[in-house]
């Protein structure tokens, strides 16, 4: 028997809670990111203000959430890009929803009257007053709530997702934080949660998850942990800090807001030094043997004592891109961003933009409220971050993100803002690799850690599982498709053929693209990168020039569209849409783009 999927829907305006059967939708759109797009399509009218009560916030899980990392894919219309928004949060939150019996996720609609937190313990769902938590930083708010709920529950194994002050103040790139080191940070999901007056969500489940075939799943997972050791070797030891030096040497990591291809400062980001001097232990997500969350603790002043973690989203952004000298200093800044509840990656792009403007003189000390925002100045960075999180002075404008802020500060210089569709490009330097460059550009929702726009990556976010393991999976199971079909058979009871699987991939990725098109995205117009990457040459450590060729970029982009199953213009073809049973999108698409091919 196939698994049934139930979604918990909470209307914050009325306080009404109901359970919705979404088995059909899950079967079509898989869950997570794919189903999130469908829910937004159905429930949010076109052109809705993302910070209004009409927006929804979906904590999406998928059929295999909790196996290989418990990814929760958060979906809402994004206040940052004013288009489809989504972000992934790993850790242990999603699996808790499944154990609570909501294997179709948690949907929040409307807006609470006053600050609240949502308490879910199996069938008990309560909207509780959170005035005592409002204004608190991470992780103070989580710990306070944990201590409070511990009085109710005999054990404290529940999971909490919170927003920091940035989310409360509707900073457009605010994040949702879970266990301090897991964030649904991209595209302003924290601001949406803040706009709904929800400070925190605490979940604890103790029901039997309704998997189709436990034994089959268990066998598949045992095979995976006994044979899929490659990722464990590096990531367990160093966490994500390990990828940075390699990327600097490959010129795929931004330096000085993308003005340089190499700087001696890059060699200060040494994972070995960080590991031997400051590593505490390794920490993993649910049912993942990799354990790539590696907390560090630094005691040596300046900028200490501090705990910190170098993650893929803050690793590049708060490094040479703002000229911070190495991981030792970065651990401090990264953690400060986390405590404020900002998206590390996006806000570092905003700060890097301001730094370049200050360097060039288009922004003065007076504009910044007396802050000397020179390259690598940690004190200045912390002060400007606080201004952004609390929307003080120029922070009020910077809090609008790179889509809206350049128009509010016209003298600064829009050309220095490194952004794609309003999302800051921080950790990536497109000039080092054409495939990286195109990968950044073709994601319909904006730049999300490089190649997050491919159907395969969208499927990882839909299933939901950690896409970091995608390199390792083919070594054990032959191909991603083999593995996923096996997992889906065990967890959901869906017997997919290879062709079904391909269609499943396309359906999720088309759904997202169609939603973006409905909200004004035109692939050929919007899938571009800032001019700097095509006009300014940078040089790597060995003096080799790096620059993107526009013609080659267009050509590669076209090939990429075709490889995604799209037309050369980046639009889903009519015939394929009909085959996939997505006829309902065709009228909207034709209204926006003319007749479909």
């Amino acid at each position: 028997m196939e698994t049934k999927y139930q979604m918990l829907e909470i209307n914050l305006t009325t306080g009404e809670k109901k359970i919705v059967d979404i088995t059909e939708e899950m079967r079509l759109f898989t869950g997570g990111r794919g189903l999130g797009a469908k829910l937004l399509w159905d429930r949010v009218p076109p052109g809705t203000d993302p910070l209004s009560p009409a927006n929804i916030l979906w904590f999406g899980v998928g059929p295999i959430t909790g196996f290989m990392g418990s990814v929760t894919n958060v979906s809402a219309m994004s206040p940052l890009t004013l288009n489809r928004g989504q972000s992934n949060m790993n850790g242990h939150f999603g699996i808790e929803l499944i154990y609570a019996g909501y294997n179709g996720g948690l949907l929040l609609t409307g807006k609470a009257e006053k600050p609240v937190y949502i308490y879910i313990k199996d069938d008990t769902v309560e909207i509780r007053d959170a005035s005592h938590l409002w204004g608190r930083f991470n992780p103070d708010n989580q710990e306070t709530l944990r201590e409070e709920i511990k009085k109710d529950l005999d054990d404290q194994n529940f999971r909490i997702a919170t927003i920091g002050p940035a989310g409360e103040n509707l900073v457009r790139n605010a994040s949702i934080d879970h266990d301090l080191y897991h964030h649904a940070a991209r595209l302003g999901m924290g601001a949406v949660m803040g706009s709904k007056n929800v400070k925190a969500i605490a979940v604890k489940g103790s029901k039997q998850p309704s998997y189709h075939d436990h034994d089959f799943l268990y066998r598949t997972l045992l095979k995976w942990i006994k044979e899929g050791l490659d990722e464990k070797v590096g990531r367990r030891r160093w966490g994500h800090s390990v990828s940075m030096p390699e990327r600097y040497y490959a010129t795929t990591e931004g330096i000085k807001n993308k003005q340089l291809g190499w700087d001696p400062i890059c060699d200060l980001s040494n994972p070995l030094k960080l590991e031997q001097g400051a590593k505490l232990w390794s920490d993993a997500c649910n049912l993942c043997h990799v354990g790539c969350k590696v907390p560090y603790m630094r005691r040596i002043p300046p900028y200490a004592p501090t705990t910190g973690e170098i993650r893929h989203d803050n690793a590049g952004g708060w490094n040479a891109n703002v000229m911070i000298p190495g991981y030792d200093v970065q651990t401090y800044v990264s953690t400060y961003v986390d405590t404020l509840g900002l998206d590390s990656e996006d806000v570092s792009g905003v700060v890097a933009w301001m730094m370049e403007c200050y360097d060039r003189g288009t922004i003065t000390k007076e504009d910044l409220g007396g802050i000397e925002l020179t390259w690598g100045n940690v004190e200045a960075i912390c002060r400007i971050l606080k201004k952004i999180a609390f929307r003080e002075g120029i922070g009020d404008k910077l809090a609008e993100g790179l889509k809206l802020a350049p128009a509010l500060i016209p003298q600064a210089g829009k050309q220095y803002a490194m952004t794609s569709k309003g999302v800051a490009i921080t950790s990536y330097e497109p000039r080092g690799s054409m495939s990286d460059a195109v990968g950044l550009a073709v994601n319909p929702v904006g730049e999300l850690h490089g190649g997050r726009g491919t159907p395969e990556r969208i499927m990882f976010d839909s299933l939901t599982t950690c896409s970091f393991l995608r390199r390792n999976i083919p070594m054990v199971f032959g191909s991603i498709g083999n593995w996923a079909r096996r997992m889906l058979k065990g967890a959901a009871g869906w017997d997919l053929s290879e062709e079904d699987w391909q269609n499943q991939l396309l359906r999720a990725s088309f759904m997202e693209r169609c939603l973006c098109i409905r909200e004004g995205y035109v692939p050929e117009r919007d899938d571009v990168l800032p001019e700097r990457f095509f006009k300014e040459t940078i040089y790597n450590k060995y003096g080799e020039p790096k620059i993107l060729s526009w013609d080659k970029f267009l050509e590669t982009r076209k090939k990429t569209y075709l490889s995604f199953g799209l037309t050369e213009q980046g639009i889903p073809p009519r015939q394929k849409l009909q085959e996939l049973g997505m006829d309902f999108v065709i009228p909207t698409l034709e209204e926006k783009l003319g007749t479909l091919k």
Partner: protein
Amino acid sequence: MVEKEIDYVKMLQEKTGWGVENVPYPEGVALIEARWDLCIGCGYCEMACSMFHFGVINRELSRIRIFRYLLPAPKSFQNVCCQCDEKERECEKACPLDPPVIHYDKEKFHMVVDVDRCLGYKCGQCLKACPAKVPRFYPPEHNYALVCDLCEKDGVRRPQCVEVCPSFALEFMKPQFPQHLQRIHPDEKAKWMAERLIPLNPHKAQITPEELFGGDK
């Protein structure tokens, strides 16, 4: 007598496991020792336990449990029965029935629960008495104390959690010191581990910029 040769090259090539399964298991009195400094909190042990005993993936049915804390860095700790020495066996003493439902099997060397006689969650005296709060109940389906039986089946002990743990954080070994000294509640473990982070505490992940640079900006 010809000793059986182990083909180490083959073993390495076949990647049969993490290596733990090649450590000889102890005979007689033994326990599962949790090395909480190494625990990454993945929860494979919980899955292996519930699969072995009930054939389902459900950590609530597991006899070993993972507790997670923010110290403020996230840290996980295991909670599992350490098969206490006779005089320290608080659960057995606390059981209101005679003979006690929860007791030590001297032939199998592990705790046993008489499933049919157990009064279940509402009684819960063993849970209250255990300093580490190890016994668990899963009403309504399995309303009796769940405690570690070292995965003993027909006299053969192969603790699944130890075999599956991807970070060597569980060891099946002879007691190295009085067993009940391992009987530590995860809250206590967290408190000890948090000493590594002094002067920071769970509410404070770092020294604030205000403290570092002065001013209230």
